[in-house]
């Protein structure tokens, strides 16, 4: 018990000095790299869609989504300064947890509602037994 009191006392002293340093060291090179990458990753999908895209629109949609995913990672790294070390890893932990929730929300909603739509075809809706 005494060991615990001692250590917490020591910790209080260690924490007493101010933290003017915000732990984030942004660099011009980092911002410019992020900006150029983001610009390229924006122009390509816009050009692709505005010039008509691929023959199958689902292919174009997948390519656009892939570019968006890459650009989001670029924004995370170069603008939001994300890495596995920041805040002792807690930033990354919160991010991973959020990504899990986002994926469940998005894919779950779209999957379930797509199946609901398929099971509510007009033929079934016109059945007199289903009318109010």
């Amino acid at each position, binding site marked *: *018990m005494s*060991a*615990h009191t001692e*250590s*917490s006392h*020591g*910790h209080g002293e260690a*924490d007493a000095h*101010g*933290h*003017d340093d*915000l*732990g*984030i*060291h*942004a*660099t*011009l090179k980092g*911002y*410019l790299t*992020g*900006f150029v990458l*983001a*610009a390229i990753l*924006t122009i390509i*999908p*816009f050009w692709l*869609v*505005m010039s008509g*895209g691929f023959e199958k*629109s689902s292919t*174009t*949609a997948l390519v*656009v*989504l892939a*570019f*968006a995913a890459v*650009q*989001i990672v670029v*924004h*995370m790294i170069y*603008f*939001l300064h994300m890495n596995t070390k920041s*805040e*002792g890893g*807690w*930033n990354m932990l*919160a*991010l991973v*947890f*959020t990504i899990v*929730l*986002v994926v469940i*929300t*998005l894919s*779950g*909603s*779209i999957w379930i*509602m*797509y199946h609901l739509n398929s099971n509510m075809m007009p033929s079934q809706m016109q059945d007199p037994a289903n009318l109010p």
Partner: protein
Amino acid sequence: MSDTSITMSAGGGSPEALSFHVAADYHPENGTLLGFWVYLMSDCLIFACLFAAYGVLGREFAGGPTAAEVLELPTVAVNTTLLLLSSITYGFAVLEMQRDRQNPMMVWLAVTGLLGAGFITLELREFAHLISIGAGPQRSAFLSSFFTLVGTHGLHVSSGILWLIVLMVQVSKKGLISANKRRLMCLSMFWHFLDLVWVGVFSFVYLMGVLP
């Protein structure tokens, strides 16, 4: 606690070598930034729900105008450019902040605010145009989810501009003190996060919406 002390006393020799518990509580050095990051993640969930709603309802035109008919890609391209430019100008402001150069930083912050205001102006004009041609949020499920998702993002950008103005006043009154730097870093995260969400909006709503 009693278990630990028994173990330690049984070890005899040096207590440091045999401490099986973390001696001190873990405190992140910048608790505010971590807390703000957690807020951003919860905000991300709001947008995820709105994206899911749009994903489900985005093709339900109810006989009204389709996405390809009402969405104008050139306007969106200009909007995207404005927001991306405002991201990099905020980055320049952060770089000046790190060097404690207040005046150049204020200039970059002002440029960021103007670019953001330009974004909001274009978006409001787009909304006004849609409503004037009878494609308001009440027209179809597609337009309801479209206005909710894009409008929520616009509301966030507007709040960001308001926050930016308040911070500029604070910096001009108190200077680049440690608290103001912390606030500027929080707004930096917020602003870049909004640009990140916009990447999802222009890809998922606009670019994929106009596809046949």
